[in-house]
Every structure is written in C-alpha cells, then in structure tokens.
C-alpha cells in the first residue's frame, strides 16, 4: 500500500489557477466520494485552502493512482489536464509523507510558521472522516502529521515572532506595557498601514482609540469606524498625554512631534511609558524622542528590521523543524512498511506450513512399518527444514521495513509463492510501530 499526493500551491500556481481548482468548503461530500470511488484508490482526502489544493490518497498502484487523481482533479473542475499538469506536483511514499509533514508544520507556507494551515488540514481530515473516505492508512498518517506539527511548534520557535510590521508593533507594545487591555491608541493621520496596525491593537484588547487628522472630517469618519473619538489636529498636544501608543502617518514634510513636546507630555503623564510608532515617510516624529526617558520610538525602518530579523529566526528554526520531520518520517514509514510486511510474513509461513502438513500426512499414511517414534521425528525434520528456509526471508523483510524496497520483496514473494493478499487489521497494527 502506498501514499500518494497530487496538488498545487502558491509555489507552483498563480491565484488564477488555484481558484479554478479550489473545492468549496461546505460541499466536500461529492468530491470526496468520487475520489474514493475511483478504481485503484482506497482512501482519499482533499485539502483546499487559498494557497493550496492537495489530494492525498492511498493506493496499491502508484503510477496509476497518481494519474487517476490528476484526471479527477481536472475533470471535477472541467479544466483540461494539459493546462493543469504543468502546475501540479506529485509525490509518493517517503516524499509524500515528508510533504504533508512539512505542510502541516507550516514549513511550506507562504509565511513560514503561520498557524492557520494546521487548522485547515484538520478541517479537511474532518470531512474525510465524516464521509468515511479515510481508512487506517490516512487516519494514521494525518494523526501523525498533527503530532509532528505540534512537536515542531513546541520544540522550535518557528511561530514565536511577528513577521509583519503591524504585528511587530503589537509585540513591541506588549514588551513595554505587558497587558494592552487598559491602553489607549492614538492615530495621527490616516493611511492603510496605520489603520491596519490600529486594528491589530484593537484585536489585542486595546481600550480606547483617538484619531486626529488635518481634515477633521476624515478624523471623525475614522474615529467612527474604530468606535473611538476624533481630536482636532490643533489640539493634538492637549490630548497626547492620554495616549499610550501613538501611530503616526501624516504627509507632513517636517517633524510634527519633537523631543521637547514629548518631554512635556511624559511629565504630565507622571512618567507612564509611551510607545511612538512612526510609519510615515518622511518621518513625523523627531528621532530624538527615543532619548526621552520611558519613551520608545520605532520608525518604519526599525519595524522592518524587527520583521527581517524575525524572518531570519524563522528560517533558522525551520532547519530544526526539518530535522524533527526527518525523525518522524522514519518512524511513520517504518509503520507503513510493516503494514505490508507482517501479513506477507504470516501468509508465507502459512503457505509453507500447509505444504508441509499435506506432504507429511501423505507420507505417514503410505508408510506401513513406521517405527513408533517415526512420526515425531518426521515432524521435527520437516519443521526444521521449513523454519531454516523461512528464516532469511523473514529477517530480510523485517529489516527492509526500516525504509527500503519492501514493496519489491512483498510483490516478489506474493507472486513466487502465490500468496493471497491479506488486508491488514487495525487492532494488531499498533504494536508494529517502532
């Protein structure tokens, strides 16, 4: 039995292609049942997010299974396979296992370490479980992927630091203020970046928002949007002391807030810390403000610096994560191989035993002057022969279980000795791992 994956992602396909092959989240029954109903496909699972569409399946026939899945993906969405093919990647065996482990651990994401993907895979698995298109192999595979992702998350710092400017600002604020729930944000000027950052602060529990703008109407409009209050631009310094976090992005060509202003404000606040975030280019706030005690000023470059060093950190942590995945692949692959090996060994031994018993019975029946202990000795002789003969192949199969050409041997044995295929049973699989 083999695991295959066929799919495309932000790395191989543009959004135009991705949206064409996306599966609607609430209508998964039809595609899943169709997929699992394909010949050669035993189990199926569909992961569909805005960045990737992937189909996992278990099959006995790697090449045939992959071709069928590709065809299914194209036909289901009424696209020509010729158009789709260049964007598709497909893996089987160890590579397929590695692929899912990396995707679930967010190593293959657009922003490495982003946490959503794991939830999306869990949802996808939920559908497969609901419509019973996943069986023992995919069940075990997905659970393993979840535990690998969890291990990566707890043992590396892959997701621990902000990788967008506005998140970086929120994290910095948390290091200054601890809890943000009783803090007030002031927006000076408007701009997409500024509003996005304000939204992040609100999501993190900031209590109040003040908005000021050279055009008072715009300030009012924005204040309404954030459920805050508008302040006239001329009155900025009468209100500044009420703000803990200041987001500034005006189109001013000179500094609108200087160190002297901030000194007065901080005195009025009885030294309660202030965090200025200057997103404007050219800058709105004199860099000397950062020298005022209990005041922290970060401009766009500083925040970019934080983000890029965090990205670097994530890249380093991703290496550790790959190491963890390597270990886990070994374990899972082992399990998967033994899944095939054990029934084959059992079948092989049964076959030998049947032949031995049959031949023994024949011989004993036709032997008139068999000495009293003759049957016992024949028993011993024949079972010694079969055991000796079976010992090397059994050992070889068990050893190749640790990543090797198990399939080859299993197939050869089945054909050479005309073994019946025995479906593995779930209950006696657990003790096979490790």
């Amino acid at each position, binding site marked *: 039995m083999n695991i295959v994956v066929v799919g495309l992602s932000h790395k191989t396909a543009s959004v135009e292609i991705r949206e064409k092959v996306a599966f609607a989240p609430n209508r998964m029954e039809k595609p899943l049942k169709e997929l699992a109903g394909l010949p050669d496909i035993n189990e199926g699972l569909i992961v569909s997010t805005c960045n990737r569409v992937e189909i996992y399946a278990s099959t006995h026939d790697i090449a045939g299974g992959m071709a069928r899945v590709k065809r299914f993906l194209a036909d289901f969405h009424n696209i020509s396979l010729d158009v789709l093919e260049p964007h598709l990647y497909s893996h089987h065996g160890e590579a397929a296992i590695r692929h899912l482990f990396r995707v679930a651990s967010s190593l293959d994401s657009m922003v490495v370490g982003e946490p959503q993907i794991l939830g999306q895979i869990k949802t996808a698995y939920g559908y497969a479980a609901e419509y019973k298109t996943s069986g023992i192999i995919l069940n075990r595979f997905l659970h393993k992927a979840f535990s690998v992702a969890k291990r990566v998350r707890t043992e590396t*710092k892959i997701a*621990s*630091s902000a990788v967008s400017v506005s998140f970086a600002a929120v994290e*910095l604020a*948390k*290091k*200054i*203020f*601890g*809890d943000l729930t009783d803090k007030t944000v002031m927006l000076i000027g408007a701009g997409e970046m500024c509003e996005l950052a304000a939204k992040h602060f609100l999501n993190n529990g900031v209590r109040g928002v003040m908005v000021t703008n050279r055009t008072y109407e715009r300030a009012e409009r924005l204040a309404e949007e954030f459920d805050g209050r508008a302040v006239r631009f001329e009155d900025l310094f009468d209100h500044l002391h009420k703000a803990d976090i200041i987001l500034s992005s005006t189109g001013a060509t000179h500094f609108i807030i200087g160190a002297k202003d901030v000194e007065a404000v901080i005195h009025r*606040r*009885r*030294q*309660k*810390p202030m965090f200025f975030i200057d997103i404007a280019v050219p800058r709105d706030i004199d860099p000397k403000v*950062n020298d005022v*005690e*209990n005041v*922290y000023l*970060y401009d766009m470059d*500083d925040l970019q*610096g*934080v983000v890029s*060093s965090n990205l670097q950190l994530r890249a380093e942590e991703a290496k550790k994560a790959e190491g963890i995945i390597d270990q886990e692949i070994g374990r899972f692959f082992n399990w998967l191989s033994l899944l095939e090996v054990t029934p084959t060994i059992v079948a092989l031994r049964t076959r030998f035993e049947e032949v031995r018993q049959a031949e023994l019975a024949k011989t004993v029946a036709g032997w008139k002057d068999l000495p009293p202990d003759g049957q016992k000795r024949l028993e011993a002789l024949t079972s010694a022969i079969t055991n000796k003969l079976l010992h090397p192949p059994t050992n070889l199969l068990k050893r190749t279980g640790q990543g090797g050409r198990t399939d080859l041997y299993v197939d050869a044995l089945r054909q050479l000795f005309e073994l019946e295929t025995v479906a593995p049973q779930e209950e006696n699989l657990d003790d096979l791992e490790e």
Partner: protein
Amino acid sequence: MNALLFYSTLGIYCIATFIYLVYLLKPREILGRSAHWLIAAGFLIHCTFTVIRYIEAGHTPITNLHESLSFFSLAVVGVFIAFERKYHVFILGSFVTPLAFLLLLASSLHSSAIPLLPPALKSKWLLVHSSLAFLSYATFAVAFGAAIMYLIQEHFLKKKRLGPLYQKLPSLVILDEINYRCLTFGFPLLTIAIITGAIWAETAWGTYWSWDPKETWSLITWFIYAALLHGRLTTGWRGKRAAMLSIIGFCVMLFTFLGVNLLPSASLHSYDRLLGEKYR
C-alpha cells in the same frame, strides 16, 4: 546531620543556579520549571536546617557571619519563590538565585561552630530585629534582580536590539511592578527593623541611637529607599530611574550588612569579629 542539610542545600542551590543560567540561553520551558521546583526543594531543606540550628544553638541563628549569610540566603530564596509564583517569571531566577547561592557559599566559608553569645545579644529582640532586617534585605535583593532585568530589557528596546534574551525577558511593566512591590514590602520591614533595633539598643546599651557605623549606614539605606518610594508615589519615578536607585540602594545595603563589619573602626554590630577574638 545538620552539616549534611547545609551542604545539600548548597548543592541544590548550585545546581538550580546552573539550570537558571542555562535557561537564560536556552528557550526550553522545562528548564525554568525544573529549576523552580529544585529551588523550592532546596528552600525546604534550608528551612529545616535553620530550625535545627535554632534548636541546637538555643538562640536565633543570626549571630555571626556564617549564620547571618545563611539566613540572608534563605530569606532571598523565600522572597524570590513568592514573587516567581505571583508573576510567573522563571527568568527572575536567573538573576536572583546566583546571589542566594553566593551568599550561602560565603556562609560555608565561615566556621559553623556555634558561638557563645555575648550578653548584649541574649535577648528576644534578636529574633525580631535580625529576621526583619534580613527579610527586608531579601526583598531588596529581589528588587535588585528585577532592576537589572529592567535595565537590560530597556536597553534592548531603546537600542532596538531584539535578540533571544529580549524575547525571554518579561515586559517592562511587569519588571517595574516587581520592583515596586518589593519596595512596598521591604521598606516597612526595614523601618520596623530599625525601630526594633533602637529599642533593643536602649535595653542593651542604654541608648536608642549611638551613631554606630551600622546604624548610620542603615539610616542611609533607609533614606535611599524612602526617596525612591516618595519619588514613585509623588512624581512618578518609575522605570529606569527607579531601577537605578534600586540598584544603588541594594549596594549600600550590602555595604551596611558586610562592609561595616570590615571597617577599621569597631562597630558594636561587628559580632563576628568580636566572637572570633574572644570565643572561637
């Protein structure tokens, strides 16, 4: 038996300090957790040691450098555990436990023989005055640790160097809060210690205040922390300024405790030396 308790405490503090220092460099949460439980176990053994010592000696074991350094260390660990539990910052241990370990190590270098008490020390005030004094010292020691952490973290934030240690250290507000809480516990304790000391001095030496070096330096320490508390409550001295003052206060306090004993002019409080000459 009691020596065994003492050295096991020393050993545990040593290992816990080591783990806390490793925790500073490695991000594993398990390190902080295990160091925390280890230091708590060490604290219990240390308590047992101190109680047994009290029973064996027949007086509060804060009479010579061996005893008082050990008691100081015990108090630091006790106060630290309380704050660590309250604020859930294991990393505080990386800054405070080394101090507790060094204090106990210093204690181990002094003779552990039970001293004969000079008459002046034979009093119930010994327990009250000395233990309160060391408890206040201990809270200032924790404040000192938090203050150093504050200065490091503040430096990172100002200079925009946001490395792994920055990630590990708690927010400035928490560190400032620990500093403030320590002050609000430590300052009243120190005040009562000084007052009880004066009362005891009156009964023992016949005068409330004799400008003995220890008394003078205690008063200086008291003024520093009083100024800090006043500044905090009125003009909002916080953050860096409070942290610096807290560090200065702790250094002066250490001098009050140790330095005065080493001053050339004999202090009435230099029992260790007196005992060393007369009774050892």
